[in-house]
């Protein structure tokens, strides 16, 4: 039990640190790296919640493949710092303030008495819970339509990305 708690706190602190790093670091390249760290700690949390398949997918697909895409783009666009412009705008201050208000509200909601149902250790689950076999059978039986829809969405996004990012002669010359 204590091991689980220890792991939770370690992984939680790591995930929070990664998140803060994403937001706070000046260089986008470091931000990407911080996000990768955040995702890995998140995968640990998923393991604690008995979501083995999800944790693996998180590490392999998300932290691995997607973040590599980010790194490429950052390298291509130029991982420069934020443009050096006077840091104006009330949102610089107000944005984090709004976020803080939301956190406070959510914590009251979660820890206060209002949502008492949450205060549980969770139901007992069978050994299969969260395993690739379980996820696979759920995806292909109960959630077949969302699964298919998601695959089409991926296809559309892939085509869209190609169309957006390809070289267009007319436009290039026009703006050059």
């Amino acid at each position: 039990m204590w091991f689980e708690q220890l792991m939770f706190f370690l992984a939680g602190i790591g995930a929070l640190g990664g998140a803060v790093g994403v937001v706070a670091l000046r260089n986008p390249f470091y931000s990407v790296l911080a996000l990768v760290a955040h995702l890995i700690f998140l995968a640990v949390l998923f393991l604690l919640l008995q979501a083995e398949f999800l944790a693996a997918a998180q590490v392999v697909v998300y932290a691995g493949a997607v973040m590599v895409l980010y790194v490429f783009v950052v390298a291509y666009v130029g991982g420069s710092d934020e443009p050096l412009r006077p840091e104006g705008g009330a949102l610089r201050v107000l944005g984090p303030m709004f976020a803080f208000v939301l956190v406070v509200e959510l914590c009251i909601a979660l820890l206060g008495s209002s949502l008492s149902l949450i205060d549980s250790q969770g139901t007992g689950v069978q050994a299969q819970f969260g395993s690739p076999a379980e996820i696979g059978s759920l995806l292909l039986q109960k959630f077949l339509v969302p699964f298919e829809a998601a695959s089409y969405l991926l296809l559309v996004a892939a085509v869209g990305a190609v169309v957006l990012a390809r070289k267009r002669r007319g436009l290039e010359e026009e703006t050059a």
Partner: protein
Amino acid sequence: MDVSWFLVLSAFIFCIGAAGVMSRRNPLVVLLCLELMLNGGNLALVAFARMHGDGGGQIFALIVMVIAACEVAVGLGIIVAIFRRRLPVDVDELSDLRG
């Protein structure tokens, strides 16, 4: 482990992401912060799945990851296009849709 701890953690991650979206001006970083928000949501979903012993929440999280991947593909495509057209890579400068 008490599930509500996970939920509180997910709320924090979500709000940090939100704060980042509002305060950063580099669109790349804004996209990263969006990933944070989505991950916060994912954590909550997985926690609820554990609480109810129902695999549906995990499938939901999986689909969210698919959405995130799509968003990254399109968003990065847009950023590359912006960069190619020699436009400033700064969300404050890209405000042509002003009413």
